[in-house]
């Protein structure tokens, strides 16, 4: 397996009125072709910043990203992004949304018939061929996200970037979407970077889980290799001791080593104490 994406020494500082805010510090990651990598960490730890730098939507303050031997300087369809809130153009149908991407990326390299076949193939891949000509406001949240994924896949990206793609969906729909994604991944073997908050999702889908420390100046805390056999089945894995161990590893990292939750507890305690005091006084 060869390295397709190389993130080296990335720092990211955002200018604020109080001086620069360092979101990322010394972020290094190599990703192989066909690998599925999850980024996990508490809110505000800079996961999205990493993704946006790889996408080219942000420029790293120092360090950089090399994709296929070329430095990333601007956004482009070879690094397609699936946004958290689908970001479909509401005035276009599912088909037209994918069409916009296909026409832009392939242009005259595909004739009319090939273009149509390619759009329909991608929509079929995400099981949206039955509602191709519906507008985003006529389909459910899960379906919108499916179209968003179809649009990204249709660009035939070298790396597929997913920013909490299922974060806004309910648990059942999310499980469906994860299964769909595994199916597609099995068929196409894309290189994927996915941001998630969901420990089960990360373990189920990934080849590696990149666990990030809390910001500011966040960086990689640990990297966990997931060597579960594919294809994976969520029911069979539920009783798999290896799955349980990996899950526990991630949880341990998030809730023991990076104790962001503790500080929230502390705040609650300090808030509840005066209340107790006043009760005693009464």
């Amino acid at each position, binding site marked *: 397996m060869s390295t397709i994406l190389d993130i080296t020494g990335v720092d990211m500082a955002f200018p604020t009125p109080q001086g620069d805010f360092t979101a990322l510090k010394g972020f290094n990651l190599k990703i192989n072709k066909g690998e599925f990598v999850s980024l996990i960490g508490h809110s505000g730890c800079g996961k999205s910043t990493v993704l946006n730098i790889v996408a080219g939507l942000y420029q790293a303050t120092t360090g950089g990203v090399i994709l296929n031997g070329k430095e990333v300087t601007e956004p482009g369809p070879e690094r397609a*992004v699936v946004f958290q809130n689908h*970001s479909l*153009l509401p005035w276009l149908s599912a088909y037209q949304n994918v069409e916009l991407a296909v026409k*832009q990326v392939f242009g005259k390299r595909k004739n009319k018939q090939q273009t149509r076949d390619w759009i329909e193939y991608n929509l079929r891949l995400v099981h949206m061929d039955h509602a191709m000509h519906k*507008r985003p406001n006529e389909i459910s949240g899960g379906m919108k996200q499916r179209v968003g994924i179809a649009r990204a896949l249709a660009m035939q990206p070298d790396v597929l970037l997913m920013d909490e793609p299922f974060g806004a969906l309910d648990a059942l729909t999310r499980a469906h979407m994860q299964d769909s994604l595994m199916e597609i991944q099995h068929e196409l073997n894309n290189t994927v970077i996915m941001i998630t908050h969901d420990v089960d999702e990360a373990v189920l889908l990934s080849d590696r889980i990149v666990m990030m420390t809390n910001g500011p100046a966040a960086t990689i805390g640990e990297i966990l290799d997931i060597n579960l056999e594919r294809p994976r089945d969520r029911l069979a894995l539920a009783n798999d001791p290896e799955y349980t161990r990996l899950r526990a590893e991630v949880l341990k990292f998030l809730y023991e080593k990076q104790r962001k939750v503790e500080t929230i507890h502390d705040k609650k305690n300090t808030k509840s104490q005066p209340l107790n005091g006043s009760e005693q006084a009464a």
Partner: protein
Amino acid sequence: MNSTSSTAAQSQPPSRLANHFQTIFNSLVNTVAIPLTGISVFLMIWAAGAQSIDTSLGAFPGPAAVYQQFGKLYLEHNAERAKADAFYQRQEQRNNQRLDVDPDYTVKVRSYTGKETFADQIATSLVTVISGFLLAAFIAIPLGIAVGLSKTLNAAINPIVQIFKPVSPLAWLPLVTMVVSAVYVSPDPLLAKSFLTSMITVTLCCLWPMVINTSVGVAAIDSDLVNVSRVLRLSALTHVQKIVLPAAMPMIFTGMRLSLGIAWMVLIAAEMLAQSPGLGKFVWDEFQNGSSSSLSRIMAAVIVIGFIGFLLDRGMLQIQRLASWDKNSAAR
């Protein structure tokens, strides 16, 4: 047995049928009866009030007088048209006669110079307001898009827009009149100067709401949609065409409806002030004329002005429904 079954059959469906009729009746009351009642009450108050107001031009016209006046205006229009037709017929006859006598005669065709009728004035005003509005849209929408896309341009243009927006276009009118007279010099003008003056005044007042609404609509585009465009590397033109324009469409139409409403109000005033042909001139001429029927003719014009304003707004709404993807924003 027969009687019991029939009563059972009667007692069930009628309640459902009655419900059905009840809903139809309710919607009829809401959409027809209540507005009609409102209008009749208004007419009664108007009729009663009109009788008790005496002006130097006679009693204030009630609904009946205005209604009669509509009939008269229509007859006058027909009479004037008949005169015009007769004039053109005579002219043609005369020209043919002269051609028969002298085949080398170059035919002179003169247009009829009779008085403009009420219908002519309506047509003039409509053409003026629509051309002024279209000219403004032609300038304001591209400008608004540019301002919405560029913060620099916005900072540069915003103060100018904010200063000129509250200026009554009537203040512009003398300036426009003088500039048109000075700049538009042609021995055989395609467009009348008075038409240009009114049209440009309308344009000046239409510009600002459209620039502001378009730029706000463009600046408020969801940043995710902009990111989609960046990931796809859409060219600037395609970006505007495929993302910016549709996204800002509801706001652009809001601006256009506002503008058109203002334009119609301003045009009537401008026509009165500048004595350029149109409904405003009709009102002013009748006022200056001071005959016993003047007030009822002005009142007829007022009603027509209101109706046209209403129809212009509805027309704009209809265009918005056809053109905009966002059917919700076009509901009001």
